């Protein structure tokens, strides 16, 4: 066989071939070769979808609801979503013109970026961040402009850093608070300042609030609620985290009608619609899912208290995250790089954590530990980490 690489040099689009592979992928391969690993590397709930929600998906199938839905998604679900956002977020969206159901927040994010980016437009986002952000922007021929968030600032984005990153080409800023991988949230004052800068420079705000229910101590209102913001904000949310529905692949975007309409075009031609089974299950989650969600949240909160205390007690400084289910302890002082720390911890103690660098170069010196794992596993993992760093 001919060397396919040299023969087919131009098969892959250039902007795709230059995309890096996610650092998480490498780690996945490594962990998968091992048995009995305690994994704090899993970015999804350890709870199964609550039974009443699963049951409604089964019922939906039973009734023979197996067709496409309207491109925007079931109107009944959009109404339910808008009512939920009004009640819990004080956001007022029209279910007919300002809301679209997507295949996870993943697709909603893709739509938002594709709908607004012209080639060369800059999108500001903060690092360390969710692995998809920079590639998503690049795939839409935009230019990702990272702003570093720092430990001494509890990993909140500083409004000044945002301002400094703005150029005439800046089209939007992408925010994710509570944040994967740091668990950081923003205060009211920080959001207010960011909102004012966005308005001053006529910048669109895309806010990925997938973890917003999982906010523990102080919860500030969504940036979309600030004066003048709803008209320039694309609000992304979904069911994966708070309702433990990652496998259902269901999310949504709410925003001004012109933006939602543009996103709708991309969605219509690329995805058509989200699964009807999942949409009906999501409706059930909003109608009757509150008590189960609160229960899971209480559990995450307790795990957070334990993991943060354990890290700090063993001498690895760990900011107390106010949201999501990630702790982001500093491992710099061990003298190991994030990658070496994670690899050695895995091979010597069979505990999987993700190197901070998987979430951006500035994640060096940190690791991400998801506490979406049982309390027993968390406690055992912490014992092993303690042992590990003692022997370094």
């Amino acid at each position: 066989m001919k060397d396919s690489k040299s023969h087919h040099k131009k098969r892959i689009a250039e902007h795709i071939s230059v995309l890096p592979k996610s650092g998480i992928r490498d780690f996945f391969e490594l962990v998968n070769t091992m048995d009995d690993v305690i994994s704090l590397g899993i970015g999804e709930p350890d709870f199964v979808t609550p039974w009443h929600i699963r049951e409604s998906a089964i019922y939906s199938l039973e009734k023979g609801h197996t067709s496409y839905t309207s491109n925007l998604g079931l109107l009944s679900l959009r109404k339910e979503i808008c009512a939920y956002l009004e009640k819990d977020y004080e956001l007022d969206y029209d279910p007919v013109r300002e809301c679209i159901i997507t295949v996870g927040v993943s697709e909603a994010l893709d739509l938002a970026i594709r709908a607004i980016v012209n080639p060369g437009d800059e999108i500001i986002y903060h690092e360390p961040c969710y692995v998809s952000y920079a590639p998503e922007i690049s795939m839409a021929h935009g230019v990702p402009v990272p702003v570093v968030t720092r430990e001494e600032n509890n990993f909140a984005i500083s409004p000044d850093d945002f301002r400094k990153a703005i150029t005439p080409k800046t089209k939007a800023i992408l925010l994710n608070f509570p944040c994967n991988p740091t668990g950081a949230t923003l205060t009211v004052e920080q959001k207010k300042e960011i909102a004012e800068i966005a308005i001053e420079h006529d910048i669109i705000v895309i806010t990925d609030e997938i973890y917003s229910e999982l906010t523990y101590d102080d919860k500030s209102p969504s940036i979309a609620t600030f004066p003048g913001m709803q008209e320039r904000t694309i609000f992304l949310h979904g069911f994966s985290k708070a309702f433990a529905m990652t496998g259902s692949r269901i999310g949504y975007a709410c925003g001004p009608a012109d933006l939602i309409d543009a996103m709708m075009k991309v969605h219509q031609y690329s995805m058509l619609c989200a699964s009807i089974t999942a949409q009906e299950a999501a409706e059930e989650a909003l109608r009757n899912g509150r008590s189960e969600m609160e229960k899971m949240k209480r559990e995450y909160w307790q795990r957070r208290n334990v993991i943060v205390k354990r890290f700090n007690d063993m001498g690895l400084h760990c900011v107390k995250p106010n949201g999501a289910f990630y702790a982001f302890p500093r491992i710099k002082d061990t003298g190991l790089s994030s990658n070496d720390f994670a690899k050695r911890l895995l091979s010597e103690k069979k505990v999987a954590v993700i190197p901070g660098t998987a979430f951006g170069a500035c994640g060096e010196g940190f690791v991400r530990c998801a506490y979406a794992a049982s309390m027993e596993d968390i406690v055992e993992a912490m014992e092993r980490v303690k042992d590990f760093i003692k022997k370094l």
Partner: protein
Amino acid sequence: MQNEILRMLNENARLTPGQIAERLNKSEKEVAAMIKRLEEDNIIKGYRAIVDESVFSPNCVKAIIEVKVRPERDGGFNNIAKRVSKFSEVSSLYLVSGGFDLLIEVQGGTLQEVADFVSSKLSTIEGVISTSTHFLLKKYKESGKMLHNEDEYERLKVSP
């Protein structure tokens, strides 16, 4: 904090004050004092394991009995309910709405024992109008715990 502690112990009575304190971000002393108070106030009524009783008493028989009673002019259902609950055979007793008044869970060493309890003790009590006994055949869930194991489904070991 009180309700949080009660919720946790109700779920797992073996949690130590130290473990609870760590999870709630409190001191161990505070938690221990709170638990002591809850015990003294009889809010925590005891601790015990949820076990598969068929292991240590394989012939144990349980029944649920629906009882219709005539309420008294003074005290309504209270006197008779308290009186019935004194029997050691009775493990739970509730006053309920609907077609009957008291719902009783009883257990005995043999079928005969339970039958004797109903015919000679329960139905002879002044005020008991009628009883309807349902013997339990198999237990699937107790105190929020499923008694059968379901296959574990494993997530990916690493995900973004």
